[in-house]
């Protein structure tokens, strides 16, 4: 009698056990939906005025939706605020996330923190701007050399071989400046090196770029073309050419897609703009970070595309989305 009773009790216990073992993940699942990776994105800025970074964020959100994660996006209000970015990154590391997508404001100053994060087992992927460190698992950015080549080829085709070309760069030693210049120079390498007037630094200041161009025009009356390597350099150069009425004689190829640059492009002041794809950059950044976290191999450097836009193809389906990424609110 007692043995039978015991068997029943054991069966009962086994049923409970089985229910528990099989049921726990179910309960767990119901209580807390599938274990998402904890991901932080530290941008150069989260300010609403910075269109580029807003589009990066849109790309990040698109990837987050597709890969079913909820990244927390943080960053300083102003783009140049390295100190605040360092502080923000420290706080992020305190939260011990699985991964951090970092768009570093400074090539060197964020390195110790990135190394600390990596030491804590946090996967770090850098976005847009590289870090002077080997710890980031991958680097996602526009291929600036390729972008430079596009600009160089365009200016090369616009300017006759006997007229000189100048390069207006932003800051000496900055990665984007170096890479873009390398690209431009390689595209212009068939030309007479004497007619490449060298690289002039605007220090990312439109006024300075304006001054540089004014001086160059004076100095080299047969100047045929200018390649401006970032937004402020392009705007400064464009204003100078417009003010001097030289836009038809001196060709300008620039970078980025600010409203003023687009205006210049439409009016023929700027002949072409090399435009990055920030949406894709944000998207690929999150995708890459997740691929690492989910155990898939990735390349150490992943480049996103850039596009050369001319006046005639400004409003194609593809390009208008790049040049005018944000749908404005309706009229008030």
């Amino acid at each position, binding site marked *: 009698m007692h043995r*039978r009773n015991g068997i029943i009790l054991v069966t009962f216990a086994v049923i409970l056990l089985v229910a528990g073992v099989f049921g726990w993940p179910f309960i767990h699942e*119901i209580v807390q939906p599938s274990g998402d990776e904890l991901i932080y994105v530290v941008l150069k800025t989260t300010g609403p005025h910075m269109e580029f970074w807003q589009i990066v964020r849109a790309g990040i959100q698109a990837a987050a939706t597709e890969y079913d994660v909820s990244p927390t996006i943080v960053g300083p209000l102003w783009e140049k605020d390295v100190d605040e970015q360092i502080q923000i990154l420290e706080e992020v590391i305190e939260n011990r996330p699985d991964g951090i997508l970092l768009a570093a404001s400074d090539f060197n100053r964020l390195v110790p923190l990135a190394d600390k994060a990596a030491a804590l087992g946090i996967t770090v992927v850098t976005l847009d701007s590289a870090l002077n460190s080997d710890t980031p698992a991958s680097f996602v950015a526009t291929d600036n050399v390729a972008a430079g080549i596009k600009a160089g080829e365009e200016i090369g085709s616009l300017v006759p071989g006997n007229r000189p070309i100048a390069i207006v760069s932003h800051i000496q030693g900055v990665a984007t400046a170096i890479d873009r210049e390398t690209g431009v120079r390689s595209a212009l390498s068939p030309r007479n090196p004497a007619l490449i007037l060298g690289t002039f630094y605007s220090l990312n200041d439109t006024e300075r770029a304006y001054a540089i161009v004014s001086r160059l025009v004076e100095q080299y009356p047969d100047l045929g073309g200018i390649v401006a390597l970032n937004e402020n350099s392009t705007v400064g150069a464009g204003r100078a050419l417009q003010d001097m009425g030289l836009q038809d004689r001196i060709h300008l190829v620039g970078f980025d897609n600010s*409203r003023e640059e687009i205006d210049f492009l439409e*009016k023929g002041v700027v002949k072409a703009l090399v435009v990055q794809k920030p949406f*894709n950059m944000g*998207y*690929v950044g999150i995708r890459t970070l997740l691929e690492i976290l989910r155990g898939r191999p990735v390349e150490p450097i992943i480049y996103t595309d850039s596009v050369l836009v001319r006046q005639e193809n400004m409003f194609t389906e*593809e390009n208008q989305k790049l040049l005018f*990424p944000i749908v404005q609110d309706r009229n008030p």
Partner: protein
Amino acid sequence: MKRQRKPRRIQTTIALAFTAVVFGTALVIALFSYTFTQDAVQETSQDYTGQLISQVQTSIDSYITHMENITEVVQLNEQVQNYIGGTRTLSPAEEANYRARITSFLNAISRTRNDISLILIAGTNGRVIIHDAEIVLNPAVVIPDQNWYTAALANPGSAAVSSSHVQNIVEGEYRWVITLSRTIDDPVTGETYGVMLVDLNFSVINTLVNRISLGKKGYLFIVDEEGRLVYHPRQELIYSNLETEHIDRVLTGSPGSFIVTDEKGERLYTIRASRRTGWRTVGVNYAAEMVRNRVTIQRYYVFGTLIAVVVAIVVSFLISHRISRPILRLRTSMQAVEQGNFDISVDITSDNEIGALAKDFNIMIAQIRELVRRNAQEQELKRKSELMALQNQITPHFLYNTLDSIIWMAEGKQYSNVVTTVSALAKLLRLSISRGDELIAIRDEIEHIRNYLTIQKLRYQDKLDFSITVDDSVLSLQTPKVILQPLVENAIYHGIKNKDAAGHVTISGTIEDHRVVVSIVDDGAGMSPERLEQVREELAGNNLRSTVDNPAVSQGLHHPHRRIRVGVRNVHDRIQLYFGKEYGLVFQSTPTSGTVVEVHLPIVHSPGEENAPS
């Protein structure tokens, strides 16, 4: 299965049955509900998507309709007709007048809704007019080269709707819009004067579509008839070939739905086409998300079933325990009774069948206890009454009389009579000494009474005569000891002795109606009817105890008259004690002609010949 199986407990049986029933029921219900729910969920999610898409479509169509209505109204405006259609050179005042009036007209229309960002009319005569006089045209734009202009001219009289695009016609403004354009024609000749443009701020549609959620990953996109994306949440990725969209299938297939399975997993495309714009609005649901729902439902059902079963097991154990525990207690009590312990009672007070059973069991035990007690008492009575019968057999009085007779016969030198008497007495004594079985053969009882009568005959001489005729078949049957002597004594004492003439006692034994009947017939004084009735009543009154235990009765035994009456009574009681109420003595008597006493006995074979053929 030679092994002896243990008897299964009721508790186990109930628990197993209950559990099995609940499990089965729960399983069937869960399966049915699950199937229904699953279908319902899938259907609901498809319906839901379809409804959402239709809603979006309807909203967009209503915007487009509104824009078209604007063109209808403007088209019919006479000022517009005259200004745009006119070829005459206007004076600056006329020009200003026209422009002011048309501008304020267009402005009024544009104000009706704030989602209209631009209304513009461009005449073939080169005159262009905008709803807001402050708006400056982009000098870089050449109107006849614009898509909306050529599209309207290609199809005069009907509206052309663009895909979403950036409107660059206004200087310094690059707004995402949807452009509706149509020709303005002469109402009479049908000649085209110009083209009118209405821009819908695309943010209206953007906001509308962004509000729609199709699960976590699902999304919605809109594509125009040429396959251009009007809206897609990941438009940039598609243009960069980082992502592909199944636009061809959306365009070629008829509206409805289709399923796509690729490296991104299974997706359900639900398509609605607009008659007005030709646009197709497409909802994309990830099957994995529907599956996630399904898995969740599955888990809920599995859980529900498991909980039901666990509860069933617990409850069934409790219930079956409650049922079986009193039964087990009852059984323990019964086992005690089997061991011979009748001094117990079961303490179960429940109100159900088990309680009733326990109550009946207690009553039964009480009755058995009473029966056992009564049985023991009756055994005791039998023993006492037999003792009494034996005591009555040869009384000192009888012995004295007999010995006196022998002396008297010896003095009269009647030696043969002496021998007969002494021999009879000796046999009588031996028989009475012989203690043994309670039942003896009728033969022995007859022999005993013969000896007794022989002695009495010597005493009463010619006054008493007797004859014994017993069937041979009766002789070997059984009877209680010493039942005839009190009756014969009674016959002599009350019958013959009171008669002047010689009396005759006849003893006969036969089988009648399956019973042994031994009759003692005397032809003595007989009994009056009253006396006979009195005797019968005495016999019928079941007061055996009184004859045996009553001290008054016992003390009166020395009186012959009294002793004989008690002896007869004793015989009757003993027979009934042994064989039951249907046996015993039957008296028949008529005054002066004698008395018949019948002894009714069952046919009882002696132990040795019980199975012998009779």
